[in-house]
């Protein structure tokens, strides 16, 4: 997979989610672009943090959300239970369903919740969160959608997480700090070199070069590499036309 060639879905999602005014709006965008039925972002309760309650945003119906809260389903919900223990993304069909969860699942389906879902655990240096997508599509069709888009969802999950942290803390993204290698790769990208060229110039493999560039994109909010180049020049992190690497 070329890490820097992006699908139209992903490009649109980046653009729109980047501009979204709230996490909820970002979730609605994700839901629309990937034609899923519901999306939920759940930041785990962390005592050390400013917020003392879990931060949850969802596109589920109000009726289902209030029923979920009033019934104390958060203690039963196998997605939440396992989602905060697992580290790797998972299909809901991988969940082992305990007898207490049967009733919950049946009730969920009666309230329009789809039978299929996919969740991405998000782990940063101090917090854990979970992004879940829910679908009413039949299992076989859902499997195909997951195979096609799980890589994109992984990236977008972290973008939404960043947005949530901003929404909670009002932090502005500080200027990202780039490593020497990242700067070098970005410098040569700014001068129009492909990752194959850069690999040769720097004596690295093409894969590693792409990985550095993918990091750079991640640090600049996961847009395309061209916008990272523009921003890096604007922030004077690189100086490609000055003939000196800063």
């Amino acid at each position, binding site marked *: 997979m070329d890490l820097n060639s992006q699908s139209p879905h992903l490009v649109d999602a980046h653009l729109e989610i980047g501009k979204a005014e709230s996490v909820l709006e970002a979730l609605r965008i994700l839901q629309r672009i990937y034609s899923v039925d519901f999306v939920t972002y759940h930041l785990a309760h962390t005592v050390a943090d400013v917020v003392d309650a879990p931060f949850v945003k969802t596109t589920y119906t109000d009726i289902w959300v209030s029923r979920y809260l009033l019934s104390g389903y958060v203690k039963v919900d196998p997605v939440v239970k396992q989602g905060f223990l697992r580290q790797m993304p998972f299909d809901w069909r991988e969940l082992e*369903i305990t007898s207490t969860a049967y009733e919950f*699942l049946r009730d969920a389906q009666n309230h329009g919740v789809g*039978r299929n879902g996919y969740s991405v655990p998000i782990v940063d240096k101090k917090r854990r969160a979970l992004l879940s997508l829910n679908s009413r599509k039949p299992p076989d069709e859902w499997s195909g959608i997951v195979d096609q888009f799980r890589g994109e969802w992984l990236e977008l999950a972290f973008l939404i997480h960043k947005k949530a942290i901003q929404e909670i803390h009002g932090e502005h993204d500080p200027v990202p700090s780039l*490593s020497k290698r990242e700067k070098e790769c970005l410098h040569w990208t700014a001068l129009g070199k492909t990752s194959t060229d850069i690999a040769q110039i720097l004596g690295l493999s093409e*894969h590693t070069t792409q*990985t550095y560039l993918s*990091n750079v994109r*991640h640090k600049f909010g996961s847009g395309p590499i061209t916008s990272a180049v523009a921003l890096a020049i604007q922030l004077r992190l690189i100086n490609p036309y000055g003939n000196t690497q800063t």
Partner: protein
Amino acid sequence: MYLLVQANEYHKYAGLLEQSLRLRKRVFADWLGWKVSVSGLYERDHYDDLQPAYLLWCDEQRERLYGSLRLMPTTGPTLLYDVFRETFPEACDLVAPGIWEGTRMCVDETAIARDFRDMRPERALCLLLLALCEVALNNGIHTMISNYEPHMKRVYQRAGAQFDELGRADGYGRFPVCCAAFEVSPRVLAEMRLKMQITEPLYRRPEFFRPDVIVAELASA
């Protein structure tokens, strides 16, 4: 067989996980002389408290462990980031959702000699590396950051692995410790299988449970 065990299943594989901690003590503390935190018969550090995933290689009965390694996402706290920050600045900049670190990779040479006649320890480590490649690919990981002792470099190369060594550090054990970024892709997987002459996948992801079917049955009951 190979198992990927995450925190939601630790209780199911407690015996194998305990063997893994014992094996790590024998390999890293006793044999390689690394300065690792040993308590009693186990080698265990605070990264083991952060719900890492473990790749376990064991017999079909899931009773006897042959090898193991620990997997953590680089977006969270990681050992290589914290411990080797000074030594491998470039490795520590590799932080992204699709990049994971693999540490404490080891095999039980005694158990392997007993159950797999004629298998050399290098081959065993390569099998574990191949299983790691399969697991990583299966979970959307495109790069693994991992450490190893220098003599393994040629072994991994012969096994078809693609990696860039990012640096070496002295002072952790008798030999330097190398750190590298391993490419995870269908191309590398095919190359490794070819070089190691393995045709079948080593790792099989567990079958789906079918809660939808179960729920439908409940509803009609």
